[in-house]
């Protein structure tokens, strides 16, 4: 008789799901650099969400009498630009734009990349076609591709989002495909098939969650690239148009005054640098934390 109960005491398991996340989080914040990065990202998020509350001044309000004030001036602690606009308030509002564009571009890119990656990893037949298409996209330098897209669609922030997301698709597709290839050989996928699950169900419900770790890492790192690219495109005049307080556009505007008021390019430059650094560091730390986290056995 074996239908009898196997005696083995189990404590109550209720909080297991949170527990796995908590473990990853604990591992993440053991990394000191990750904390620095997380703090910077949190600050940016706070600035983006609470921009009107933090700064009382309209970022686009010109006052030519107060133009090119240096850092540390009373009332304008980061100085003003050539039109007398408060740089601090422009940085704060700029955080909003860079975060929005970053999130938008990365999520759009993820949707495309994940679908392509799943299809090409799962169906051998589609693999060749999709991967050659992806190779084709890889052959294009990213910023050139983005410029081409913007040249076709016209200059605006929305088009920047689209351009950068298209550029994220091939990398994402490759990463997802790689994970799918190894996951679909796992016995639990064959077991799911043996239970009569459809391909779509297996792909999205069973394979995709198992690819979560590399996708999360990719998305975080990609945020850095997306923010940097937005700044680059705006700097080239292809993204945000004046007077939008976009960091890249601020640097572009400050170029002429580089020698007289260097803070006009230094301040937004530092802002971009810090944010890009933060996302990269956090992405890196996430990779380490999730790597151990995903080996769920013991």
């Amino acid at each position: 008789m074996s239908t009898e109960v196997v005696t083995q005491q189990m404590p109550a398991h209720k909080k297991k799901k949170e527990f796995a996340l908590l473990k990853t989080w604990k591992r993440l914040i053991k990394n000191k650099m990750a904390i620095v990065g997380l703090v910077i990202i949190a600050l940016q998020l706070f600035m983006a969400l609470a921009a009107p509350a933090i700064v009382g001044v309209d970022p686009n309000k010109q006052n030519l009498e107060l133009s090119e004030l240096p850092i540390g001036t009373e009332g304008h602690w980061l100085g003003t630009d050539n039109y007398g606009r408060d740089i601090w308030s422009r940085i704060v509002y700029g955080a909003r734009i860079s975060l929005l564009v970053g999130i938008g571009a990365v999520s759009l890119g993820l949707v495309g990349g994940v679908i392509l990656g799943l299809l090409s990893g799962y169906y051998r037949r589609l693999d060749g076609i999709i991967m050659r298409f992806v190779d084709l996209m890889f052959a294009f330098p990213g910023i050139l591709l983005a410029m081409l897209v913007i040249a076709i669609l016209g200059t605006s922030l929305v088009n920047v989002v689209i351009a950068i997301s298209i550029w994220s698709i091939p990398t994402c597709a490759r990463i997802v495909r790689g994970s799918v290839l190894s996951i679909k050989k796992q016995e639990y996928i064959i077991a799911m098939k043996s239970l009569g699950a459809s391909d779509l169900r297996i792909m999205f419900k069973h394979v995709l969650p198992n690819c979560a770790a590399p996708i999360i890492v990719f998305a975080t790192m990609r945020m850095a690239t997306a923010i940097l690219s937005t700044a680059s495109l705006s700097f080239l005049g292809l993204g945000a148009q004046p007077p939008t307080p976009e960091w890249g556009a601020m640097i572009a505007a400050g170029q002429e005054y580089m020698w007289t008021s260097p803070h006009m390019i230094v301040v937004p430059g530092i802002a971009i640098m810090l944010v890009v650094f933060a996302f990269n560091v956090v992405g890196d730390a996430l990779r380490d934390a999730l790597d151990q986290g995903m080996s769920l056995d013991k």
Partner: protein
Amino acid sequence: MKDTVLEVTNLVTKFKSADGLLPAVRGASFSVKKGETLCIVGESGCGKSITALSIMGLLPSNGRITDGSISFNNKNLASMSPKEMQKLRGNDVSMIFQEPMTALNPVFTVGFQIREPLMIHQKLSKKQAHARGIELLKMVGIPSPAERMNQFPHELSGGMRQRVMIAIALSCNPSLLIADEPTTALDVTIQAQIIDLLNDLKEKLDMSMIMITHDMGVVAEIADRVIVMYAGEVIEEGRVEEIFENPQHPYTKGLLSSVPNVDDPDFELKPIAGSMPMLNEKISGCRFHPRCPHAFDKCFSESPKTFSVTDKQNVRCWLQEEVGQNGGRRASSL
């Protein structure tokens, strides 16, 4: 006579490879009756798992059934559309796998995975499926089943996971269960429990079972009938007593004398020399002749016919022909 659930006739499964089409199963025929347990035994690579996957329609993408028919409850599975097969799998035929550690999805709870087939096939609501899941876990002997439903696979031991797998496979009351070496990856004590469990459940649910194994101990424990496969061919079949007491094929005898005997201290293991031929090896005549101690001229040139030993026991070996002539002395003295 009990009715036949599964009838496999002359099944040929081939794999596309760099060397062309290679046959992994070469004309296997067997049948499973209602409520019966059929064991498929053989070394690794003899085609027993591929036979099972052919039945399930789960061959890897480079594998294909090129000939023969698989009739399950009078429906030919070999010619069914993928969609029909999908409906059948998990519902009428289901399968349990060798490695319980990897056969459950690590990112979902046990409950999620046990509810899924119930919701797909029986269109139960989540709540109903949950209740049924708890019943199923109880049926396979899992303690505190309600709590287990919220646990992840990595929190369970190997034996527990295999029980969960069995519960999932049986969730829709299939008429045929295919078990692909379900005990190989488990501890010996757990093995016995799982074998007992399968035996009990088979009787309780009145289903048929195909057990794939290379463990003769398991065979003796559970089988009604046995087929022995070698290099993609069924070389001997018969009732379990016949196979153990009066094996005819030299390979079957070899398999039996490769099993350690605890009771007899003088028992010497006699391993079968050599190894299973590769799929792409071309062997004339009987595919076992390079390893067979009794091979003679005919074995090198002609593929053996099937000889009936009793009404249930069949064997493919030329030695049988001589047995017929010499009054059965020679083969039994092997």
